[in-house]
């Protein structure tokens, strides 16, 4: 090696072009991955819409879509149009949005807590949402509010309330500590789970409704639910992405983040809020769907590296893709034509996969 001490001053300038070339190659790989995933989601929207008890050809789907966009297309019979537009496509779009939301929330929670187990569950956000629903079911609240069943609103209130309680519990002399945050999440989650069980045993009539909600499903969901989730999803995704650089730096720990000029407590609070919005929105329209927020960030990190700017974008698309197809599986898996809760499908796929990730050598070094 050359004598480094002598070159402590300004020797020859660094080779900027070589490094920039290398970085451009990285950017190209990212763009290619993004393109593939983006096209994958678009193709999946059409393909997944065609699959179900009534098989519909993709040309027919294309005609319906063109018709809806106001472009002249051969007419399609009314029933098929309703199935394609009103039932199937809305459901596919919703599952994609929920997948993107959950995966992004997972990236944020894992990045914040530097913990592979971090996801909406560990923080009690999902259980909070489920509790909100269980409570409303027990109270027999029905009817509609702004054209929606009050259950999604209950989920949202429950999720945010759980988040607030967890934050208050974990606040120590003005700052949020990540260890106490996990502990508080587990405490709140356990407590709320117990309350849900209590509600179940008190009110046997509501049992099936609650169980259905807790397992997670897109059955019977439509455009109205897409409309309900969209503002939360968009706001949450923007908040997460706006702080992607801070997420990178927070991986260095609280102290060094402070030294690098990150307002740690404020940034953490905003990121937690963003991720809670995403989770609450998702849980409120589809119930509790596990493992998407846990597995997708791991998978993408192994393939695309730890940089959160790319990780967030690719995870959102991957999450959408995975949940779209998990929902298709939930529709066609049972020969009887009955639907499986999609939460069961993601757990069956995600559980072993997560186990593999934990044990594989490539990921172990990360934690």
């Amino acid at each position, binding site marked *: *090696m050359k004598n*480094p*001490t002598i*070159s*402590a*001053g*300004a*020797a020859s*300038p*660094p*080779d*900027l072009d070589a*490094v*920039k070339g*290398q970085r451009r190659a990285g950017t190209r790989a990212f763009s290619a991955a993004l393109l593939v995933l983006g096209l994958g989601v678009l193709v999946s929207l059409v393909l997944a819409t065609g699959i179900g008890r009534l098989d519909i050809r993709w040309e027919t789907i294309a005609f319906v879509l063109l018709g809806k966009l106001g472009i002249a297309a051969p007419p399609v019979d009314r029933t098929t149009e309703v199935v394609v537009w009103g039932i199937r496509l809305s459901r596919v779009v919703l599952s994609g949005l929920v997948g993107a939301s959950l995966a992004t929330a997972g990236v944020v929670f894992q990045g914040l807590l*530097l913990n592979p187990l971090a996801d909406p569950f560990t923080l009690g956000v999902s259980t909070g949402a489920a509790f909100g629903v269980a409570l409303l079911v027990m109270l027999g609240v029905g009817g509609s509010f702004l054209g929606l069943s009050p259950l999604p609103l209950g989920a949202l209130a429950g999720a945010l309330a759980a988040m607030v309680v967890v934050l208050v519990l974990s606040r120590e002399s003005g700052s949020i500590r990540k260890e106490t945050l996990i502990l508080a999440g587990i405490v709140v989650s356990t407590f709320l789970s117990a309350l849900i069980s209590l509600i179940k045993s008190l009110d046997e009539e509501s049992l099936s409704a609650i169980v259905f909600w807790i397992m997670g499903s897109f059955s019977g969901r439509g455009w109205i639910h897409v409309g309900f989730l969209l503002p939360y999803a968009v706001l949450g995704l923007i908040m997460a992405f*706006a702080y992607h*650089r801070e997420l*990178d*730096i927070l*991986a*260095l*720990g609280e*102290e*060094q983040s*402070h*030294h*690098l*000029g*990150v*307002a740690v407590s404020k940034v953490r609070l905003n990121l937690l809020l963003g991720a809670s919005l995403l989770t609450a929105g998702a849980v409120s329209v589809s119930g509790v769907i596990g493992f998407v927020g846990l597995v997708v960030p791991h998978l993408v*990190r192994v393939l695309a*590296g*730890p*940089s959160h700017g790319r990780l967030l974008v690719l995870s959102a698309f991957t999450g959408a893709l995975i949940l779209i197809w998990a929902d298709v599986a939930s529709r066609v898996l049972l020969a009887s034509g009955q639907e499986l809760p999609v939460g069961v499908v993601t757990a069956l796929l995600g559980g072993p996969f997560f186990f593999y990730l934990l044990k594989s050598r490539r990921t172990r*070094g*990360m*934690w």
Partner: protein
Amino acid sequence: MIQVEALSLGYGERLVLQDLNFAVAAGEFVGILGPNGSGKSTLIHALSGLIAPKSGRIVIKERHLETIASRLRAQILAVVPQASEVRFPFTCLEVVLMGRYPHRQRWGSLTDDDLLWALRSMRRTTTEHLQERPVTEVSGGEHQRVVIARALAQDPEFLLLDEATSSLDVRKKLEIFEILKFLNATKGLTVLCAMHDLNLAALYCDRLMFLKDGGIIQDGPTEKVFSPEVLAQVYQAPMEVLRHPGHRRPYAVMLPLAPASREEEEILKAARG
């Protein structure tokens, strides 16, 4: 210029340092010395705004430290912590580029200037060859030099080091301090380093500050305060201070605790004062 006035620091109920008063002018090279638990790290934490003072105040460039926004503070003041760990396999270049965070706009992309700062800092700390290596896979010494490169990439006016070179071997220690000395001499970088290595401090620092029993018990030019009396008082151990015939700077030699000769007994006696 850093001014510290009637500063008391501590954790919870416990006070670690009380009523500190000192000023560090721009361009100084200050070593903060003292036995374990004397509050060196606590002082560095306070000067970097990581912990709030119990009482008193810290003024940096005519402004109260607490009132300076995080990003602005990081533009003028960088810190190299004791030991650190990164939990994700970022490449070393990515880690060094994080040092440009306080200078970057939220939605702006990386400029040539940012990249140049990072590369120059890596060259200075001889970590250029690590650019593409995951920071989780480099040795402890390499990791520490990457962290120092990141601090340099912040382009700070003040650099605080908390036992930053303790984990490095002799050669790497010297290399780092040569860089600090160079930046101190040519760019006017103000350096404050908390350290254990007496001889390293005597070799590079122009001013030494000794902490003990919750306060500063000696503060002055190295030539003046680096004496057997002060060292023995601070560390409760017998020491002899000699002057190197070559570079003319003082260095300390420790003596066994159990006196073996009369001269050593004399020194010990002087130490107990």
